[in-house]
């Protein structure tokens, strides 16, 4: 395991993107920072700028308004970057698939920019914080192959 992979795994900085979530997933993301889960144990912190991010925590259905912005954010992030599609909405637009204001699902939107993007899915409505941590651990395996 190269130093590069070790360092990236131990220090994932998270940028939180809301692409039209009902705010429930966002609350669960914030739960990760609380004393109960404290993801800083694994070196993860929430950062304010996509340029600093290693993980884009995307919540929400990716509406037509949010689509180009999500793509722009992905372009702005310094690679390598992992995308976490959090919640059923971000996974496959959930119950809103048929709605008039939908863009494409999060993974398709990101793949339109970068076909090789690393995307981890966290199903649930909203998913538990434990599930998000488990998703990050799965993303570690992919980081090792970079």
């Amino acid at each position, binding site marked *: 395991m190269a130093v590069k992979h070790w*360092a990236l795994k131990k220090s994932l900085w998270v940028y939180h993107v809301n692409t039209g979530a009902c705010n429930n997933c966002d609350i669960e993301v914030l739960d990760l920072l609380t004393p109960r889960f*404290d993801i800083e*144990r694994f070196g993860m912190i929430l*950062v304010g*700028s996509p*340029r*600093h991010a*290693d993980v884009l925590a995307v919540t929400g259905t990716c509406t037509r308004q949010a689509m180009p912005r999500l793509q722009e954010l992905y372009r702005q992030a*310094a690679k*390598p970057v992992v995308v976490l599609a959090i919640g059923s909405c971000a996974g496959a637009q959930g119950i809103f698939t048929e709605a008039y204001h939908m863009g494409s699902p999060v993974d398709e939107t990101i793949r339109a920019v970068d076909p090789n993007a690393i995307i981890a899915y966290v199903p649930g409505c909203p998913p538990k914080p434990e599930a998000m941590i488990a998703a990050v651990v799965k993303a570690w395996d992919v980081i090792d192959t970079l």
Partner: protein
Amino acid sequence: MSVPAIILTYLAAAAGTLLLGLAAKWFDRKVTARVQYRKGPPWYQPVADVLKLLHKETLVPSTGRGAGFLIAPAIALGATALAAAMLWAPLFAHEGSFLGDLIVVIYLLVIPPLATILGASASGSPHAAVGASREMKLILAYELPFVLALLVGVIHSGWTLQLGKMAADQQGQAGATLYSISGVLAMIVAILAVQAKLGQVPFDLAEAECEIMSGVFVEYSGPPLALIYISRAMLLATLPLLLILVFWGGLKLTLTGVPAFLGKYLLLLTLVTLIRNTNPRLRIDQAVRFFWLGLTPLAVLAAVLALVGRYKGLSWL
């Protein structure tokens, strides 16, 4: 000392400060986590952060000026490393300092924020521009009380501007500057100014994560961000040294002196961290008013008390 020996010493001091800085950064985050009833990051966290940033991509915004944007973090790092080296020299050997090195250190410590402003302005981002303008006002606000507070130390040690001599003087008959009324006042002012110099809460308005998205650093990524991270860690390690040298008797290389120095160092670091954790961010106008109308008169009072004490022979003043 010959020139190569001096250069080697300075390089060793800079490298040592880097390690100390990363340790201080971890200490800061760990104490923060404990204050919030969290477990906090493992001890190698800052090392992992820096290594990770060094391996990431460097992005230069299309609206920015590449050269100024990329060179600014290097300038900040250089100035911080030099200031750190100039503080270590008088700590270990009182002859290791030259006349007026206090003034040089004060100048060097202004360079990192100036470089930050340069980089932020070169990045062409409106968030960074807001951050840069706040940083500029903040420098204007804290620099005067900071220098006035250091002046108290200068007066106490008989108008010497040589850090080595100041430390030697405090280790002699006179006692540390801190153990006097003016010394305590000056220390309070200096610690708050240090807080602003470090860009820590309550004076972190230049980065203000939740309103201007880490402001001055918003466009940095990869290696330049690593340089910023390192230079800020080094600044965190360096500024307590300056306070100890000027106000608290420096380092005595004896069996009791070294633990005492370490204790003082950790105490100052903890204090800075606790101030950061127990205060909300100030608005820029509040911060400027706080420094100009609150701390500057306090620092002037301290200087006057120190002068009276010096010429009336009252060492407790």
